[in-house]
């Protein structure tokens, strides 16, 4: 059989979940966002969640366009506000499975406050952060993920800020599931997204992706393949290590893995508990309680 013909005789297996009338998507040649999206689709299919109950919320950015290609209820909101929008969506329809997919700038530059508070509250959201180490959509500026010294259009002499370790931040704020992969770890990534969807509480999956057009171009990795190979070569898997030790050091290792997978009541669990009055009174502050050991001079 020849594959030379232009149209294959079967549709792409993901076409069901794709707004095919919007293909090709806007992402550049070799951009990792498409791969991440592909993994999301696989995870959604495998999860067995009724499709009507899955929603995706994105902010603004290259990654933010993901929602627009998913043929499910999908919301492309404002820059930085995907998480609070998703908060309302989820609380209004608790049986729904709400996936937030957005860029690192969207989720953690302008959106950083919502991120930390949602993690703290343990809102039942699955947050997928595509980390391409810069702001793709606006042409490649410095982001809170940009490695120290890396060049971007607003750090032409090198970035003078230390980046965040997003996984460590998520964990520090209370996320119950935290994993990081590159966009080449397609099977592990798909598994993590699936686990995150099934997890009750704030789950966070970071994906390191090539942005050849911007990050690559300014850092001598213009070719998509070079970037992806670089990630591949440098990434090392260290499951369950403390995410603050899971450093991204471009000169050495890019540590990936599943770092956190714990249980903690969600916002709604606690809300219901308290509003049924089931928790009982908040402990009196009066010092009737057993006293802690005191130091001689406190």
């Amino acid at each position, binding site marked *: 059989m020849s594959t030379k013909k232009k149209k294959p005789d079967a549709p792409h297996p993901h076409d069901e979940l794709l707004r095919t009338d919007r293909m*090709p998507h*806007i*992402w*550049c*040649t070799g951009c990792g966002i498409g791969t991440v999206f592909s993994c999301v689709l696989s995870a959604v299919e495998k999860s067995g969640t009724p499709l009507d109950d899955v929603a995706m919320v994105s902010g603004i950015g*290259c990654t933010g*366009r993901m929602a627009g290609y998913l043929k499910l209820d999908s919301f492309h909101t404002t820059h930085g506000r995907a998480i609070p929008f998703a908060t309302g969506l989820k609380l209004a329809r608790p049986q729904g499975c709400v996936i937030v997919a957005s860029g690192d700038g969207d989720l953690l530059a302008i959106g950083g406050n919502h991120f930390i508070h949602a993690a703290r509250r343990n809102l039942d959201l699955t947050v997928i952060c595509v980390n391409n180490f810069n702001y*793709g*959509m606006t*042409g490649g500026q410095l982001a809170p993920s940009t490695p120290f010294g890396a060049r971007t259009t607003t750090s032409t002499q090198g970035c003078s800020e230390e980046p965040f370790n997003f996984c460590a931040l998520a964990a520090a704020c209370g996320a119950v599931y935290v994993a990081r992969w590159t966009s080449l770890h397609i099977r592990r990534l798909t598994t993590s997204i699936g686990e995150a969807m099934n997890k009750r509480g704030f789950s966070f999956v970071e994906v390191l992706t090539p942005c050849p*057009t*911007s990050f690559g171009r300014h850092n001598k990795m213009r070719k998509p393949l070079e970037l992806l190979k670089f990630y591949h070569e440098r990434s090392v898997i260290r499951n369950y290590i403390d995410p603050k030790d899971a450093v991204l050091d471009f000169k050495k290792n890019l540590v990936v893995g599943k770092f956190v997978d714990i249980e903690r009541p969600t916002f709604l669990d606690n809300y219901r508990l308290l509003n049924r009055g089931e928790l009982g009174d908040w402990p009196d502050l009066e010092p009737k309680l057993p006293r802690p050991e005191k130091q001689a001079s406190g």
Partner: protein
Amino acid sequence: MPARNEKEILITGFGGQGIVLTGSILGKAATLYDRRHATMTQSYGPEARGGSCSSQVIISEEEILFPYVEQPQVLICMSQEGYDKTKASLVPGGLLIWDTDLVTTRELEPSWTAYQIPATRFAEELGNKMMANIVMLGFLSAVSELVGVDSLRQAVQSSVPAKTRDTNAKAFERGREYGESLLKSRAKKDQGQEQA
């Protein structure tokens, strides 16, 4: 209704082909080196790469009032979509140039002067597909007299990163040579036809 003396040039293609840079080099050549007036406006989509994109240049002896190109005298097409969308706007007698590998033209308005050049292929051969636009500018310098060729050379040199000046110069000359030889062979053909 372009004002007298206004030359309107429309360059269309995809994001990532350097369409905007092409327009801006052209405008720069006219403004800074030919000491005429020029405006360059751009239109592009949200895509960093691959979205449709155009650059509109007006060159004039006088101050330019309205910066949009309405009826280009020159149309350069580096994508099929760009060609399809804009060909109707080219004035009768206008100059049409396209990239051989990226655009398929069908019936052309007979009054047009029409050229094609495999600019992208040439650029690939020179080691970087992204220089197709500079090849195109070299070609344009050969087949039109929009701006002085040295002005254009200077504008190219002052607009590209220092490290890439040499290769860009090569790309420019590659396009220019192709244009000149094309003109020559056409001239021959015309002569031949005349003689025939």
